[in-house]
């Protein structure tokens, strides 16, 4: 009768080593819950990026591979092309996906490769110590923007969902956040939808998750969640950017 909320089956017992209040761990749990609910753990292969979430392969209790920085979408393409029966997801940070791996991302999207990308936008390079990311917002301070990102010097941030929505290939693009309860629940619905689209064989899906990085932003976790609402989601509006499921 009653429901039990506890660690999903698709996660290992290993305790996650993220900073206090980091959004990565919430995103991990949501993916695992979706894998449990869709009952695809035994067909799933996850791709861990280079970044704070490089240890994703320790936390997910399914087959995992860790690939070079930025190349998740290329490796996922190879896997899915030779084993279309697998459920492949590529988990990537913003430096990984939108700087060093921009080409791989765009081309996998435009080929509409049938896998799911979970894209963590925390506007910073977490793992290497809080440097500027392609998603760092104008004025935002990082360890390589000590006075705040100056667009005349560093250019403008990349809005991944908006950019990819200009392509014909992607089937489903949504931007969500994991900074409060309603957003977490919406994020899970988006992830589940993306995986379902892959199960249905329709094509490329990407869920962008605005994710607090209290350490990189130099604020306490609570303030980091407020920052997602007050600053990030103003610059990166939440919502569905593309959904071709109805047309197909």
């Amino acid at each position, binding site marked *: 009768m*009653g429901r039990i*909320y506890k660690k999903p089956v698709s996660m290992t017992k290993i305790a996650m080593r993220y900073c*206090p209040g980091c959004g990565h*761990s*919430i995103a991990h749990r949501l993916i695992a819950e979706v894998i449990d609910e869709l009952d695809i753990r035994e067909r799933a292969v996850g791709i861990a990026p280079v970044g704070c979430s490089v240890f994703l392969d320790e936390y997910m209790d399914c087959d995992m591979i860790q690939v070079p920085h930025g190349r998740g979408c290329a490796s996922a393409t190879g896997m899915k092309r030779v084993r279309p029966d697998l459920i492949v997801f590529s988990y990537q940070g913003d430096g990984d996906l939108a700087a060093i791996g921009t080409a791989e991302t765009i081309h996998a999207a435009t080929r509409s490769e049938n896998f799911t990308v979970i894209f963590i936008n925390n506007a910073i390079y977490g793992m290497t110590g809080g440097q500027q990311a392609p998603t760092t917002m104008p004025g935002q301070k990082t360890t390589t923007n000590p006075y705040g990102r100056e667009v005349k010097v560093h250019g403008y941030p990349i809005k991944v969902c908006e950019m990819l929505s200009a392509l014909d290939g992607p089937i489903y693009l949504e931007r969500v956040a994991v900074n*409060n309860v309603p957003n977490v*629940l919406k994020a899970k619905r988006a992830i589940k939808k993306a995986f379902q689209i892959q199960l249905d064989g329709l094509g490329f899906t990407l869920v962008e998750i605005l994710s607090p990085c209290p350490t990189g932003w130099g604020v306490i*976790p609570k303030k980091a969640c407020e920052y997602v609402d007050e600053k990030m989601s103003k610059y990166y509006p939440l919502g569905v950017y593309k959904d071709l499921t109805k047309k197909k």
Partner: protein
Amino acid sequence: MEETITKLKAKIKIIETLCKGCGYCIDACPKKILEMASYSNQSGYHPARCIKPEDCIGCALCYQVCPEIAIEVEKL
């Protein structure tokens, strides 16, 4: 004598060793029954604790925002 024990709606368990004290659950709880402990766990964080488990309604909102999956909730 009338029955005075009200039926528990839910069971909440906080795995203090996993908690990193971010405080997300404290803000998320609609019943405001979670708080930061004054002591610290073995990692040096003040863990969240439930001060009135009997008031828990099992909404699991704390579970939803807990990055460490340090909270388990069972709705009875």
